[in-house]
C-alpha cells in the first residue's frame, strides 16, 4: 500500500508475524488529528470493528499510528477503506447542505431590500 515513486510514503502497513489479517497497524505519513480523529470515528461506527485507535507518535513528526482490529475474520483494510469513503461522503453532504443554506440565506437577505 506504500506509494513508491518519489520515495515519499503516504501509508504503510505493519503487521505482527503470525497474527491474522484482522489486526493491523497502519502508519499514515503527513497526517495529524484532523484526519485521525474523524476517520477513527467513522471506523468505530462499523460493527465489524473490535478496536480502533490512533496515536501521534511524537508531536514533532507528522505521522500517526492507526490500529484496527476486526472480528469475524474480516481483513483490516476493508473497514479502513470503508471508513475513508464514508467520511468522504459525509463531507460531500455537509458541503452540499452548507452551500444550499448559504445561498438561501443570501436570497433571504436580498428579498427585504426589494
Amino acid at each position, binding site marked *: 500500500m506504500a506509494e513508491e515513486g518519489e520515495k515519499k510514503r503516504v501509508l504503510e502497513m505493519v503487521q505482527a508475524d503470525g497474527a491474522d489479517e484482522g489486526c493491523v497497524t497502519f502508519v499514515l505519513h503527513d497526517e495529524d488529528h*484532523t484526519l485521525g480523529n474523524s476517520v477513527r*470515528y467513522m471506523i468505530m461506527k462499523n460493527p465489524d470493528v473490535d478496536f480502533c485507535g490512533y496515536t501521534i507518535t511524537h508531536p514533532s513528526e507528522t505521522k500517526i499510528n492507526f490500529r484496527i482490529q476486526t472480528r469475524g475474520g474480516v481483513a483490516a483494510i476493508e473497514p479502513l477503506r470503508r471508513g475513508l469513503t464514508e467520511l468522504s461522503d459525509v463531507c460531500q*453532504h455537509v458541503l452540499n447542505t452548507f452551500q444550499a443554506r448559504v445561498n438561501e440565506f443570501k436570497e433571504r437577505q436580498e428579498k427585504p431590500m426589494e
Partner: protein
Amino acid sequence: MSATMNNVEEIRNRVILGEFGVKNVHTTDFPGNYPGYDDTWDMSTFQKNFRIDMVHVDESSMEFDMVGIDAAIANAFRRILLAEVPTMAIEKVFIYNNTSIVQDEVLAHRLGLIPIKADPRLFEYRNTGEEMAEEEGSEIDTIQMQLKVKCSRNPRASKESSDPQELYLNHMVYSKDIKWVPIGNQADVFADANIGPVHSDILLAQLRPGQELDIVMHCVKGIGKDHAKFSPVATASYRLLPEITILEPVEGEKAERLKRCFSRGVIDLEDVNGKKN
C-alpha cells in the same frame, strides 16, 4: 421544563458540566455499546438528521449551527479551516530603500501578515526548488506589489503647529499605499478583480521628512500549516449548544435576579398565582 431524560439517553446525548469538571465528554454511541440501540453508521439516517441553521452571516464573520454531526468531524472542519485552506500572502520582500526607523525584518514581517484580496484558486503553488533565487516567479503563481512612499515637509504648514498631521506629508504609511503591479498577462486576467490588501487602513510604518520606503513584494499561495499568515480565518471555533435545566422552581425576587444573569431572551418569567416564577 422538559422531563428529566432517563439515564441512558443522557449518557448518549449530553455533555454535563459539573461543579469541578466536565462529565460524559467522549462519544460512546458505537455499535455494541448499548443493548437495544443500533449505532451502525447509516448514511441515510445521517442525512435525515443533519441540518445546518445560519445564525449570522456578514462580510467578515459567520455563525451557524450544525445539528446531527459528531464533534470529531466538526473539529476536523475547524482544524482544516485554520491550517489547510490556502490563501495568498506576501512572502518575499525586496527592500531597495528603507530609511525609516522600522527595521527591515520587522517591516517585512508586518508586510507578510497583511491579508491580500486575491482568489487563491486562480493561482498555483510555487515550486520550492533547491536553488535559492531561481526564477523570479511567473505569472501563474506570484502577485507582485510595490510600496513606494517618501515623506516630506509640508510647505504650507504654519510656523507654530506641532501636529504631525499638518507638518508632514505622507508621514504614515498605510496598507492602501501598496499597489499591485501586474506581471505577464495578469492585467487582462484580473482586470476587474482589483487585487490588493483587504483593509486599506493598516498602519505599517511612520516616517519623518527625508525618510522613504521603496519595496517590491511577491505574494505566493500557501497554507496555514506552513505559516500562520496564510490562514484565511482570524479564528474558527465551535462549541456545543448549551441546555440549561433548572432543577427546582425559582420564584419571586430570585427569579428576577436569575433572569438578569443571562442575555436577554434566554429566560422568561411567567406569572403563577401572583408570584413571578
